[in-house]
C-alpha cells in the first residue's frame, strides 16, 4: 500500500519523524479511509441516481423533497434511517452466519476498489495481478449471498442463495473469457499497465485492438458482469416478485444497508473493470490529457453504470434456465471465439 504514500506525496515531514512501522500503519489507515469514503459516497450517489433514472423511465420524478434540489440528500436521509433502525435477527436464524454474511458481501466489494487506477499516480496498490485479483475478490460476494440465504432459515432466502450458487458457475466462465482479449492486447495483468498501453486516444483503446472480436468481447463482459452483480435482468437471487427479495428478505437496518451498499459498489467495480480493460481507463478519448484522470474514469464508469440501470428498468427478469442458456450456450462459445479471434487478429493485423 506504500504506492499511495509515494504517489500522493503525503507530507514527508509527517512521516519522516515516525518509525517505519507506524508510518506504514498510518498510510494503511489513510488508504482504507480513502477507499471507504469512495465506496460510501459512490453508493449514496448511485442509489439516488438509480431512483431518478428509474422514475423518469416510468414517467415519474423520483425523490424531490429532501435537500430541496431534486431530493439530492435522499440517500443520506435513508442512510441515517437505516443506521438508526433496529437490526432484527430472526429467532431461528443462524445468528453468527447471519451477521457475518453482509460483511462478507461488503468486504468483497470494498476490497475490489484497491487496484483501481484513478490516474497516472493515483492508485492504492498497483498489484501486478490486478485483474485476477478483482475477478477473484468480486466472486467472493456470491459466498456471502449463499451464507445469507442459508442463515436466514427462510425458504425464499434459501432459494435466493441456491440461485446465486447456480448463477456463479454460469457467469464466471463468460466473464473470465471476456477478460482475456483485453489482456492479450495489453500483455499485462496490472490494472495500471493495461491503462498505460491504451494511451493516446480512442483508436488505441483495447476495444478496437482486436477488430470485431474485442468489441463483441466488451459486450459479453458487460452482459456477464450484470449477472455477476445480481442486477436485472439477471437478479435471480433477489427476485423481488417471486422470492420477496431472496437472500436479504430477513435483513433490516444496518445489515441491509451493507447489502445495498455492496450491490452498488459492485456495480461500480464491474463498470471500472470494463472501462479500464476496454475503454482506456483514465485516458480521455482524444488523447489530450487535459482532464484529470479521475474525472475521465468517472465519466466512463458512470456511463456504463447508467447503461446497467437502463437495462434494469427495461428488461424483465430471466428464468433460471434462460440465464443458464445464455451463459453456457451463447456467451461461453462466444467467449472462446473472441479469445482466438482476437489473438489471431493481434498477430496478423
Amino acid at each position, binding site marked *: 500500500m506504500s504506492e499511495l504514500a509515494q504517489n500522493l506525496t503525503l507530507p514527508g515531514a509527517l512521516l519522516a519523524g515516525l518509525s517505519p512501522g507506524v508510518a506504514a500503519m498510518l498510510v494503511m489507515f489513510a488508504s482504507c479511509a480513502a477507499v471507504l469514503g469512495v465506496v460510501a459516497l459512490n453508493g449514496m450517489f448511485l442509489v439516488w441516481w438509480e431512483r431518478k*433514472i428509474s*422514475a*423518469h*423511465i*416510468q*414517467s*415519474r*420524478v423520483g425523490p*424531490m423533497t429532501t435537500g430541496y434540489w431534486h431530493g439530492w440528500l435522499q440517500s443520506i436521509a435513508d442512510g441515517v434511517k437505516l443506521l438508526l433502525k433496529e437490526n432484527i435477527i430472526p429467532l431461528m436464524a443462524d445468528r453468527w452466519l447471519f451477521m457475518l454474511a453482509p460483511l462478507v458481501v461488503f468486504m468483497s466489494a470494498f476490497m475490489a476498489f484497491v487496484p483501481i487506477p484513478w490516474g497516472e499516480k493515483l492508485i492504492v496498490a498497483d498489484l501486478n495481478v490486478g485483474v485476477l485479483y478483482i475477478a477473484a475478490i468480486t466472486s467472493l460476494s456470491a459466498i456471502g449471498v449463499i451464507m445469507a440465504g442459508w442463515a436466514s432459515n427462510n425458504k425464499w432466502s434459501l432459494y435466493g442463495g441456491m440461485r446465486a450458487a447456480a448463477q456463479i458457475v454460469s457467469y464466471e466462465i463468460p466473464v473470465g473469457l471476456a477478460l482475456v482479449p483485453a489482456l492479450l492486447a495489453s500483455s499485462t495483468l496490472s490494472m495500471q499497465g493495461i491503462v498505460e498501453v491504451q494511451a493516446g486516444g480512442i483508436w488505441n483503446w483495447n476495444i478496437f485492438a482486436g477488430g470485431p472480436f474485442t468489441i463483441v468481447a466488451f459486450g459479453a463482459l458487460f452482459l456477464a458482469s450484470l449477472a455477476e452483480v445480481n442486477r436485472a435482468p439477471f437478479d435471480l437471487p433477489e427476485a423481488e416478485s417471486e422470492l420477496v427479495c431472496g437472500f436479504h428478505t430477513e435483513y433490516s437496518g444496518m445489515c441491509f444497508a451493507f447489502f445495498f451498499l455492496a450491490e452498488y459498489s459492485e456495480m461500480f467495480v464491474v463498470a471500472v473493470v470494463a472501462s479500464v480493460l476496454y475503454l482506456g481507463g483514465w485516458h480521455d478519448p482524444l488523447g489530450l490529457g487535459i482532464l484529470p484522470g479521475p474525472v475521465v474514469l468517472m465519466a466512463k464508469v458512470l456511463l456504463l453504470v447508467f447503461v446497467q440501470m*437502463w*437495462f434494469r*428498468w*427495461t*428488461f424483465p427478469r430471466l428464468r433460471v434456465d434462460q440465464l443458464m442458456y445464455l451463459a453456457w*450456450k*451463447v456467451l461461453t462459445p462466444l467467449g472462446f471465439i473472441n479469445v482466438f479471434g482476437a489473438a489471431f487478429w493481434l498477430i496478423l493485423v
Partner: protein
Amino acid sequence: MRAYFRNIYEGLKSAVAGLRVTFGYLFKKSVTVHYPFEEVKVANGFRGLHHLKVDICIACNQCANACPVSCIEQTFDRIDKENVLVSRFSIDYNKCLFCWYCIPVCPTECITMGAEYELATFDRKSLDYDLVARGERTAKRNMTLFREEFVQVIEKVREKKPELAEKAEGLMGDPRVGLCGRNPEKDKSASSGFVEEEADSQASVSEEVAP
C-alpha cells in the same frame, strides 16, 4: 443451428427495441403532480365538498331526508311566509359518503358539490362543517343589497318576535356571512326589486311556523 443464431438475433433485436422505448421515456415529461405543492385538477362532475348558496336555501330539509347516512342537519327559523333564516347548515364529513343524493332533490339547486377534497384534520370534531359559515350566495346578488333586504326582514319581525330578530342580527354581525332564505319562485323576478315586493308580503308576517 439456424434456429440458434436466429434466436440470438431476435433476442438482440427485441432488446434494442426495448431499450429504445425506455430511453425515449427517460426524456419525456413526467406525469407526476407534486401534490401538496401543486393542485390536482379534478374531473368535471367531481363529488367534492358541498357548496351551499345560503341566500336561496329554503330550508326544506329535502337534502337531509335524502341523505342515506343522515349527515345533514339544518337549523332554521321561519321569519314569515317567504323568509327563512338558516342559521346553520351542517354536514358531518365523518359520516358523509359523497353519494351525491342530496344534490338532485334540492328544489332550488342551492346545494352543489365542488372540487375541494382536502379534509385531513387533527380533530374529528372539525369535520362537522357549517356550510352557512362557509357561505356563498348566488352571483346575481351582491352583499350590500342582501344586507339591506335582510335588515328589512328583521325589522318586520322585531315586534312579534324580538328574540328572533336579535338572533338574526347577531348572525348578520358575522363578517363571513349574511344569511337568509327566500322563496326562489318569487326571487326569480326580483334580483334588485326586493323592496317593492316586500310591500305585498307585509300582511303575512304573522304566520310563523316553528322549525
